[in-house]
């Protein structure tokens, strides 16, 4: 078990290195020297000259890369071209909103997707299973911006039940329970939009995993013991069926962060995604690249957590 975790951690190191290298390579496409953006523009001209020397802007690209990497590792993601604010600080301000949105979508997709998948598997080829399958296909085929606009049109503009955009109403009382309610009302639609395709994937995956598990001998043993149908399904089958579903945890993370860029833009959700789209429109490459780097590292960490939880749910890995 410990070996397994250590091996996974060691495997992550070259990937981390690769992520920084790819980011640096993409930055070469941007106008100007990427190292320039690593210097705080508010300091004096002399200090800037010194910093340029220190960063080796006259050195070969490979040296530049390692100097840039050193800055990254010390937490310097560069500075905004227009305002001079540190990129790390800008991202940090937007991170909580994005985490709230992606985590909500994450939970929605598993809490709803898994039971629906189990239902489909245990009612294979029934009308319910077929409708579920159709809805799952719809879920992965509908562009999230279109679904988002549709929800806004119906629930915000026509019915007036939910706010059209943002994270909180300006001037609303955000203390205590009332605050939670305000946030929740704003969160509902973007979280559902972000969750839908992932939910569909989780559901289909749970279904096929469950169908496969139900054919195993130990299910027959469980029935022969006289266990109730519920115990056979929810204790014996589901627990085994969920082991491969954990791999979807890992796959969900880049998917949800990627989806957040569009969803946040549609709902004007003040997270990293809308920061990213604003930065794209304003040609703020330091912010754009900082976001790419930061989200990919988040994804790497998420994958690590998923791999390790895989070991926890499968005793065959845990005790080997």
């Amino acid at each position, binding site marked *: 078990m410990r070996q397994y975790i250590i091996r996974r951690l060691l495997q992550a190191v070259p990937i981390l290195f690769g992520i920084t290298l790819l980011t640096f390579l993409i930055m070469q496409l*941007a106008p100007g020297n990427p190292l320039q953006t690593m210097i705080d523009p508010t300091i004096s001209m002399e200090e800037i000259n010194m910093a340029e020397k220190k960063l080796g802007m006259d050195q070969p690209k490979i040296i530049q890369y390692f100097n840039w990497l050193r800055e990254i590792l010390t937490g310097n993601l560069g500075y905004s071209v227009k305002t001079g604010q540190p990129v790390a600080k800008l991202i940090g301000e937007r991170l909580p909103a994005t985490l709230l949105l992606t985590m909500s979508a994450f939970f929605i997709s598993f809490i709803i997707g898994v039971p629906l998948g189990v239902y489909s598997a245990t009612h294979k080829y029934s009308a319910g299973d077929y409708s579920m399958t159709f809805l799952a296909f719809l879920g992965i085929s509908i562009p999230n911006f279109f679904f988002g606009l549709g929800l806004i049109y119906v629930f915000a503009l026509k019915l007036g039940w939910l706010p059209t955009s943002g994270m909180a109403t300006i001037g609303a009382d955000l203390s205590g329970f009332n605050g939670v309610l305000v946030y929740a009302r704003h969160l509902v639609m973007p979280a559902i939009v972000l969750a839908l395709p992932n939910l569909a994937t989780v559901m289909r995956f749970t279904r096929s995993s469950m169908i496969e598990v139900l054919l195993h001998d130990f299910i027959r043993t469980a029935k022969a013991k006289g266990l109730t149908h519920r115990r056979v399904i929810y204790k014996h089958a589901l627990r085994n069926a969920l082991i491969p579903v954990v791999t979807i945890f890992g796959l969900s993370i880049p998917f949800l*962060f990627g989806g957040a860029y569009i969803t946040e833009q549609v709902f004007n959700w003040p997270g990293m995604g809308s920061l990213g789209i604003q930065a794209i429109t304003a040609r703020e490459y330091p912010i754009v690249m900082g976001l790419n780097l930061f989200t990919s590292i988040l994804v790497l960490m998420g994958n690590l957590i998923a791999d390790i939880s895989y070991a926890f749910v499968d005793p065959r890995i845990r005790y080997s």
Partner: protein
Amino acid sequence: MKKGHKQKSQSFYALAFRRFKKNKLALWGVFVLLSLIASAIFAPLIAPYDPYMSVRNDKGMLDILSPPSSAHFLGTDSVGRDVASRLIYAGRVSLSVGVVAVSISIVIGTVLGSLAGFFGRWVDSVIMRGVDVVICFPVLFLIITISTLLKPSIYTTMIVIGLVSWTNTARLVRGEILKVREFEFVESSRALGARNGRIIFRHILPNIMAPIVVQATLQTAQAILIEASLSFLGVGVQQPIPSWGNMLNEAMSLTILAFKPMIWFSPGIAIVITVLSINFIGDGLRDALDPKLGNN
């Protein structure tokens, strides 16, 4: 030996075709997709107006945001162009972006996956670590970033989607090659002194066609969705070229969203129907070509 193998694959495809024909959703998908392709090819004959021309009404004024009528059955957009005509022409854009982008990604993925699977060792390690790196990036934002850095256009969109979405194919091809390469016929041609390249293209690729076809189909659906997203955000296909994504961009204005639903609803539905039909076909192909992989 080669002959026997060929016969086997023929009956395999015949059987797959029979299984595919039983799948009603997949057949529906084929029907819809063929109609879409036809309407894209014959767009100039079908479209009632020039998709780039602003229409003027009787009084000689620009006919802006007119509601659906007998003349414009989906109305006109914010610069007075016929929505229905743009919708038909946009199909050309979406389908061609999908096909070109996926062709690029399948070629890259197949080449890299073959190299990794066939040569193993450090070649494999480097390529597969590369895959691990690329999949850590949220694909959509990576594509947005690169297409912005290179000037956004329909061609940039095609190329960048292709350049970034090869990872699944590479993994798949590598896995299949690892399986197939143990087969005796590869060994025997190696003994005869066939060069590696010949082994890959003559012997292994025909065997892994089925999973690649499935992968390509499902990825086309994905590529069309990504193109729509990019164009919606304004970093994909640029105005005045019509694309379903950039037509939806108009709905970012609350008044259009609230009061002119036809303008954004019709391209949205067009995307859903296209992507849905391709996904049905892909799923049908998967079930037909590899019955043990299927969900049913």
